[in-house]
């Protein structure tokens, strides 16, 4: 065996020009590869945003629990509100308004008062639980939104999050949950379904809408609780009242508004045709980064 055949780790390079040349090529190729990789990574990191994590397992669990609590509340109230409405209808149809000393009318009035009390009791019992559930979900979302959208992203990033990915949730579908009147439990069921099937791009908007919805609902529940307390006081003070007073009607409407989503046609709707648009214009300018 000669020196030429031996592979020295730190061998004499001058003794083998072919090896030196090969080593040089390897070094050049490695350097070029590293430069390309570095550039590719830099390009990627300049456009990539941190992964969006708004709906943690805890948030999803909260949404589910709030939906169940809402369903229980609805079931409890549905019957009593329907009964109250039937009694009210009977009262008007029997021309009891303004009638004095009519036994039948007095009986209907008494029944109405009892049903109304029953509704107030049921609400008074269930609403605190409901409020707690909603506030827990709202606070969990608040924490996630504060971190993900407030601290980890810029204004331009928010816009990037809106850009839909194929298979993402249709915007029209999302806006319907918050804007159209819907039962509380249905809203939560829809939220839960949307969260389960959504992509990260559209989840930012869903999270934002859900958070605003919870905040508004929590505030409405607090107002309703105050109203119920006042209504109870009025009912306790006055044993007999002839008909549904404006105050009572307001309480019933408020309850229906929160629980059954009866908004009486108020609230705007984003035109759906605006949301279905996908393709931009045909001309592509050098100044348009979207091209």
């Amino acid at each position: 065996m000669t020196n030429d055949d031996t592979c020295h780790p730190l061998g004499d390079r001058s003794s083998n020009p072919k090896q030196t040349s090969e080593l040089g090529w390897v070094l050049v190729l490695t350097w070029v590869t590293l430069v390309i990789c570095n550039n590719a990574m830099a390009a990627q990191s300049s456009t990539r945003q941190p992964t969006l994590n708004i709906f943690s397992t805890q948030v999803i669990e909260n949404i589910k629990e709030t939906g169940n609590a809402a369903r229980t509340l609805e079931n409890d109230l549905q019957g009593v509100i329907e009964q109250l409405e039937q009694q009210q209808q009977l009262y008007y149809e029997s021309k009891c308004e303004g009638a004095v000393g009519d036994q039948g009318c007095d009986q209907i009035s008494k029944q109405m008062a009892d049903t109304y009390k029953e509704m107030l009791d049921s609400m008074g019992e269930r609403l605190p639980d409901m409020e707690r559930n909603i506030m827990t979900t709202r606070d969990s979302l608040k924490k996630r939104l504060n971190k993900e959208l407030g601290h980890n992203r810029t204004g331009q990033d928010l816009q990037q999050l809106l850009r839909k990915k194929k298979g993402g949730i249709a915007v029209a579908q999302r806006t319907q949950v918050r804007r159209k009147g819907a039962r509380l439990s249905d809203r939560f069921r829809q939220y839960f379904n949307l969260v389960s099937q959504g992509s990260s791009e559209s989840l930012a908007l869903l999270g934002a809408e859900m958070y605003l919805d919870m905040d508004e609902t929590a505030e409405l529940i607090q107002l309703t609780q105050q109203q119920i307390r006042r209504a109870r006081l009025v009912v306790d003070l006055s044993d007999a009242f002839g008909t549904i007073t404006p105050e009572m009607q307001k309480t019933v409407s408020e309850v229906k508004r929160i629980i059954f989503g009866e908004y009486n046609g108020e609230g705007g709707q984003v035109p759906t045709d605006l949301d279905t648009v996908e393709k931009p214009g045909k001309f592509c300018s050098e100044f348009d980064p979207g091209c």
Partner: protein
Amino acid sequence: MKNSNNFRRCLYSFTGLVLGWVLIGCQTTPAPDISCSLPTGYNVADAFAHANSDLAHLKCQYEFDHYLEALLSIAASDPKEKNKEHFSNFLGQARENGVISQVQAKENYRRYFTADFVSLGQLHNNCSTTCQSQPDVIKKLKIELRDKHRGLLEATGDREGYAQADSEYNQLLTLIEATCLACAD
């Protein structure tokens, strides 16, 4: 020696004649007086040619914004996709002439002719910027949507592009409202 003096005299005379001719020439053909008049009428191509020609002169360059406004109005008389190309070339030309920078050209194009909102910040996080001046940001977005209405809808007839911008505007308001509510203690 005498020859040398003669030659010198001839040279001076020739130089004097040339200078005189140049001076007279300068007086009789003055530099064209650029009036920096804004383009008018309904011919979109002519209007862009007029604006490009004017903006090649330093005197008119301070009027760039007015030229852009005038062109948007003229383009609105014949809205079509091709107008985007006109505006893109116009902005490119203005950049070449040093009237506006590359960044300004890009911002102008995006402001009027894409669904992107350039009014949103990109340097700091939302809690420390967007939410510190939320009403101001919303006002700027609203103004930009109006500019997109002029550019996308009126000047180029891109209904779909404008619809997308309008939709994103509404969604951005929701995102900003929720984000800023979450940022608040």
